[in-house]
């Protein structure tokens, strides 16, 4: 479904990811793990069209999408939740969700994904009229994912959904990722918390200083002694 081939992205000449290749198949949950500054966010930005790639190729369902404007990539069915979430802070929860379905305005079934969003995150339903900025960190993450789901993506990309969230909500969010996949979507998730991420993912890539260091099935990586020592602290 998604194919990233030998992508290099640089910020003003400083290479952040180099020759990175990853594949995501339909229906998978794929985790990209790595430490601070490994280039995880840059990878997602490069796919989402938020950052221009220097070389390589990104294809989605067989079509090249690198070089396409970011809003058109969203329209093609890739929803991206960036690490700072980028909600519309002074708009209500409801308006944020309604903006998510902007591309389906005028369609009678526009609010159809709302059912899934509320079943995943019931607390959003209770706070519909509240301004987004008044939500807690965890609730803001839920709203960001909810808004992304409203765009009816086939591929959902999450950048460190666990960041700045209290532990109890972290597992709630990871569980919701599984339910999102069960609802028919494909998920690419980027995380520093490798243990939790491997638990829900089918496959994973480990990124180190801008390169893919290792890749494999989650179970295999979890059993790999090097990974256990270096990344899982076991």
């Amino acid at each position, binding site marked *: 479904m998604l194919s990233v081939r030998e992508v290099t992205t640089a910020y003003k000449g400083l290479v952040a990811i180099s020759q990175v290749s990853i594949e995501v198949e339909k229906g998978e949950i794929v985790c990209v793990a790595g430490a601070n500054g490994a280039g995880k966010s840059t990878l997602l930005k490069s796919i989402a*069209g*938020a950052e221009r790639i220097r070389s390589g190729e990104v294809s989605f369902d067989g079509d090249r999408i690198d070089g396409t*404007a*970011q*809003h*058109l990539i*969203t*329209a093609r069915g890739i*929803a*991206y*939740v*960036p690490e700072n979430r*980028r*909600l*519309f*802070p*002074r*708009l209500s929860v409801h*308006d944020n969700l*309604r*903006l*998510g379905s*902007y*591309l389906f*305005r*005028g369609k009678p079934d526009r609010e159809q994904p709302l059912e899934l969003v509320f079943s995943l995150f019931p607390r959003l339903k209770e706070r519909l009229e509240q301004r987004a900025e008044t939500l807690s960190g965890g609730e803001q993450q839920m709203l960001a994912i909810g*808004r*992304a789901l*409203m*765009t009816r993506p086939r591929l959902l990309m999450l950048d460190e959904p666990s960041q700045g969230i209290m532990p109890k909500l972290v597992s709630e969010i990871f569980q919701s990722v599984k339910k999102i996949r069960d609802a028919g979507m494909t998920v690419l998730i980027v995380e520093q918390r490798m243990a939790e991420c491997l638990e829900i993912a089918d496959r994973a890539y480990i990124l180190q200083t801008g390169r893919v260091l290792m890749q494999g099935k989650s179970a295999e990586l979890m059993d790999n002694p090097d990974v256990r020592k270096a990344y899982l602290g076991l």
Partner: protein
Amino acid sequence: MTTATIIQSLASGLLMGLLYGLVAVGLALIFGLMDVTNFAHGEFLMLAMYMTFFLFAFFAIDPLLAAPLVGAAMFVFGAVAYLLVVRFAMRAKANIGMVQIFTTFGLAILMRGLAQYFFTPDYRSINVSWLGGKTISLGGVFLPVPQLVGALVSLAAFGALYFFIKKTDFGRALEATREDAGAVALVGIDKNKVFALGWGLGGALVGLAGAVMAMFFYIYPDVGASFALIAYVTVALGGFGSVFGAFAGGIIVGLVEASTALILPPSLKSVGIYAVYLLVVFIRPRGLFGSI
């Protein structure tokens, strides 16, 4: 000074104030949307007044009928000004604020120059319109009909704008872009389209104002300057970027101007406005309804 004259003055001040609000709201809208001050706003007004004048002079279209046409034409003009000029100024890598100021200022000078060349510096006026010269008496207060209709047009325009922003998807896209222009692509919105829409709306609103004002003000290439100055004060008073602030600011400016004229000689009628403006700047720099 009798009570009657005071009421009379305040009533005309209120009418003028509603028009000032309509002149200023496009400026506030664009500033709120993208932090760009359109220094050519007065020239947009000037162009709208000339459009109204020529529709009248060549096609005998009354300003009242011309108003929607001029509004629509100015919508296109505003959107094109963004797409062809301002958009490129926003791409500046350094000193973006200065680049934007010089760009819209340059646009103003260009428009004025072209107006002087093509329309000549002559003062024009629309001397016979349906409403021109008519007055109406409301409970002993005499109101000039063109100004009264102008005020009603302003109220209608503000009402429509409020509905548009609060109740439509395009309005919500406008608000979202105003919150975080870099984030709207996440929901599939092209921010450039929204910016063009904002400039179009700004143009249409000042276009409506221009059509109405062509009924009772002289039309000449520099006409925008004095009204633009009032518009900047209105917007600063109401709070930069706030649409409701422009409405309230306009009314305050109109009332203060009318009250000043009661006390001071006509040549000093602007003193009151600037005094109030300075007061607001000292006490509440973000304006009365500004949020930042």
